[in-house]
């Protein structure tokens, strides 16, 4: 049996054994050498964290959830938090401080389960100077109170980093504090509910017909109702007045305008009735409307607090950088960096300003900015642009443009976000509705003027009371709220309810390639060259497993690393490759040229050398997410598709097959070219949905009618967008769009029903015989039936598409 065939069979045997998972983070252990207390770990970092937790007796961490840890493969630079030692920087982050204590809030994006909660709230057992720590899980924040005589802010940040929760401190923390959640809607809802319930109770005697002998009691009930309706009218209904006032100022009628009008007319008529002693008024209907509307609004305004849809570059940039002055590193706040400063950029750090490289070898990963998947090499004297990430040793950059003036930030500031994305369908309908109501009121007034002028006032006011479009608004806000909830359960989060309608009207879909259609974490790989023996394969894999480079790890996993192979004299040159000795045999992975990522038409190539002789190479190509072919096949039936990529055209053929013959494929697109392409489509009258990730798509996402950001971890960092979709759920995009279109049908359906109710009400109203009892039955029953209808219909639709409900 030839050697290579045997080797291949051995490799197949290995793959049958189920992989050993790291006890800390649950990732596959490539080597079996890292163990402690009989537990296996994927890397030294995870083992170290386990050691710290075990030592403090906090192993409940591992009992609450299976393998809850955060992988420690990428080590955090030792001095990363040195800038926190600087008083002026620390002062911006600290929320409270007295003689002994300091309170500080850190944002920890890694927080994900009850184990995290347990560990983070027991920080005081890891470090005695911590007095207490409390977690706000929704915001992913931890508030730490510590004695600043015993520990510094930097120590606390490093403590969190040591247990795997590296605080995320960005330039955004410098701007004013995040606005606290607006609670007024909840207050208004509570008060409206209270008043509505009590007014209902006090109205019963009137409906049931109190003895005329109890005249005194009746007027007490009426006055109590009047008092209870005051907070509803003057406080709870405020959102409707505000929104209708705003729309009137812009000279257009939105749906809140007729509602505000109905509330005011109902209140005025009811007050005059009570004052003149002619009746009990419609206080229960009025407060009922306000209450139900507020419920709908609270549902619809449900925001995903843990997500941010409004990120700009400030959330990505570090808060401080090291400025080199007279051979000394001083941490400096980013806004204070000036032109002609020299910045020291470490491995894996973002370049915050455009500048000229003055020292070191730059290997800059611009994937964030341009979408190119391969790092580019820059030599001393060349320009480097903000947003790139250095992936080699340290470099020094001479700043030539201020942070706020760089190419990247310019991209953000230049685009003028069009807020008016066209008026919503509901608002357009409500305009006709209002006109119709006014017309009916006018006709009624004229009719009664001729027949019985005394009836003008009751008939006309009754029309406005009963014909309020609250059922229209209710159906809209309840359906939207429910659809938002269903989409959210399926990890598709929309910024606000209006986006549902925008999605339903989209006519053209534009996809980004890198990171959206392809999975940036994975690659397709093929080995070419001399067949290697079993032993040689494991030697190469053993060397590869020592490196943290994603390509090296892919190689290690491809061939599998048996335990017990020691690598001596291991060297890793960032951006070039790794080498080392195994049993005195020299092995290296990388390239003969100094260029590790030799870019060719076929993609990335990594060369393998044994005893300094090249034996073969690995070719890496884009790995499409598994659902992409099915997704594009479905979508291209209904929408024209475009794929725009910042990457080179090596994938053109593959993509052509996936996206269909009619699709537009564009490569080597700069961020502003992407934006321009969207603009061109819009000028042709298309309504564009852009699906992308990363900063390179930020401009296009904002320009498009609906910008959807794809995120591997939804809680992580995505550019400003209208919606965020979990990468693994991108395959459901077709269904999501369908659900949004069905949303519209449900709203129209419930419109029809509410109009039937309105006609019944108007029948009584125009005759001037609308009694408070009929109003009190008609209003809640129409609201309830519409709520039931919208919930039922959207649930059936979601079930039909096999979405989570």
């Amino acid at each position: 049996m030839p050697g290579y065939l045997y080797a291949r069979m051995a490799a197949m045997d290995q793959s049958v054994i189920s992989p050993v998972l790291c006890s800390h983070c649950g990732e596959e252990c490539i080597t079996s050498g890292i163990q402690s207390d009989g537990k296996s770990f994927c890397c030294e970092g995870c083992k170290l964290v386990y050691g710290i937790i075990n030592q403090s007796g906090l192993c409940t961490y591992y009992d609450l959830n299976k393998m809850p840890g955060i992988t420690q493969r990428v080590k955090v630079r030792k001095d990363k938090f040195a800038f926190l030692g600087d008083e002026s920087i620390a002062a911006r982050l600290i929320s409270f401080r007295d003689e002994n204590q300091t309170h500080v809030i850190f944002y920890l994006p890694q927080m994900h389960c009850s184990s995290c909660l347990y560990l983070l709230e027991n920080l005081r057992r890891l470090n005695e100077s911590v007095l207490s720590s409390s977690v706000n899980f929704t915001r992913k924040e931890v508030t730490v109170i510590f004695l600043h005589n015993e520990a510094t802010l930097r120590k606390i940040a490093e403590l969190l980093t040591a247990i795997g929760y590296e605080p995320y401190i960005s330039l955004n923390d410098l701007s004013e504090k995040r606005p606290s959640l607006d609670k007024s809607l909840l207050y208004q809802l509570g008060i409206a509910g209270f008043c509505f319930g009590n007014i209902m109770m006090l109205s019963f005697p009137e409906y049931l017909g109190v003895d005329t002998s109890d005249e005194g009691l009746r007027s007490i009930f009426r006055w109590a109702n009047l008092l209870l309706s005051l907070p509803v009218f003057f406080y709870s209904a405020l959102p409707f007045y505000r929104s209708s006032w705003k729309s009137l100022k812009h000279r257009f009628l939105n749906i809140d305008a007729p509602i505000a009008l109905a509330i005011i007319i109902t209140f005025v008529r009811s007050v005059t009735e009570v004052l003149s002693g002619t009746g009990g008024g419609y206080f229960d209907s009025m407060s009922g409307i306000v209450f139900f509307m507020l419920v709908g609004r609270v549902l619809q305004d449900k925001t995903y607090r843990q997500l941010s849809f409004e990120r700009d570059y400030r959330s990505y940039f570090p808060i401080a950088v090291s400025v080199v002055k007279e051979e000394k590193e001083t941490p400096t706040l980013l806004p204070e960096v000036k032109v002609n400063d020299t910045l020291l950029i470490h491995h894996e750090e973002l370049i915050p300003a455009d500048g000229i490289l003055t020292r070191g070898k730059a290997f800059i990963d611009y994937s964030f900015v341009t979408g190119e998947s391969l790092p580019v090499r820059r030599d001393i004297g060349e320009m480097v642009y903000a947003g790139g990430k250095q992936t080699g040793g340290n470099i020094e950059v001479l700043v030539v443009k201020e942070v706020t003036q760089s190419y990247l930030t310019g991209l953000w500031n230049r685009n003028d976000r069009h807020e008016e994305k066209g008026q919503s369908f509901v608002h357009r309908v409500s305009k006709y509705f209002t006109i119709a109501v006014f017309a009916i009121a006018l006709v009624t007034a004229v009719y009664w003027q001729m027949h019985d002028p005394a009836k003008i006032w009751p008939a006309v006011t009754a029309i406005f009371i009963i014909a309020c479009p609250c059922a229209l608004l209710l159906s809209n806000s309840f359906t939207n709220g429910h659809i938002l909830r269903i989409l959210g359960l399926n990890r598709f989060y929309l910024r606000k309810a209006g986006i549902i309608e925008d999605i339903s009207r989209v006519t053209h879909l534009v996809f980004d390639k890198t990171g959206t259609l392809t999975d940036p974490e994975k690659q397709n790989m093929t080995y070419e060259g001399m067949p290697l023996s079993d032993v040689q394969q494991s030697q190469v894999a053993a060397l590869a497993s020592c490196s943290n480079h994603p390509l090296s790890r892919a190689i290690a996993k491809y061939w599998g690393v048996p335990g017990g192979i020691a690598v001596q004299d291991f060297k890793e040159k960032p951006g070039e490759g790794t080498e080392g000795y195994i049993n005195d045999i020299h092995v290296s992975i990388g390239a003969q040229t100094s260029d590790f990522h030799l870019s060719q038409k076929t993609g990335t190539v990594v060369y393998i050398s044994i005893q300094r002789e090249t034996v073969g190479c690995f070719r890496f190509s884009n790995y499409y997410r598994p659902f992409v072919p099915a997704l594009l096949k479905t979508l291209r039936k209904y929408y024209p598709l475009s794929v725009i990529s910042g990457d080179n055209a090596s994938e053109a053929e593959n993509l052509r097959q996936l996206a269909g013959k009619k699709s537009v494929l564009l490569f080597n697109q700069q961020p502003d070219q992407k934006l321009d392409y969207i603009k061109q489509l819009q000028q042709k009258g298309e309504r564009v949905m852009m699906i992308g990730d990363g900063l390179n798509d930020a401009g296009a996402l904002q320009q498009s009618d609906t910008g959807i950001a794809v995120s591997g971890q939804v809680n992580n960092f995505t550019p400003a967008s209208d919606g965020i979709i979990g990468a693994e759920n991108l395959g459901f995009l077709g269904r999501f769009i369908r659900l949004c279109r069905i949303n519209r049908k449900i709203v129209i359906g419930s419109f029809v029903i509410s109009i039937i109710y309105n006609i019944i009400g108007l029948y009584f109203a125009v005759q001037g015989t609308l009694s408070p009892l009929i109003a009190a039955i008609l209003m809640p029953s129409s609201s309830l039936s519409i709520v039931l209808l919208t919930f039922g219909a959207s649930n059936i639709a979601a079930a039909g598409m096999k979405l989570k409900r």
Partner: protein
Amino acid sequence: MSVMIILLIASISVAGLFLIAFLWSVKSGQFEDDYSPSSRILFDNETPSKKQ
């Protein structure tokens, strides 16, 4: 009839108490984080002295 007035005042003030309780719970942020309190209650109260 005055008994009706007393009942009325009593019932509205009881309802008012619940309204105040609701407003207080909103103000104190009970609706802001609905995950941690429910998990926190499940953690055992281990004292730091247990550490050897």
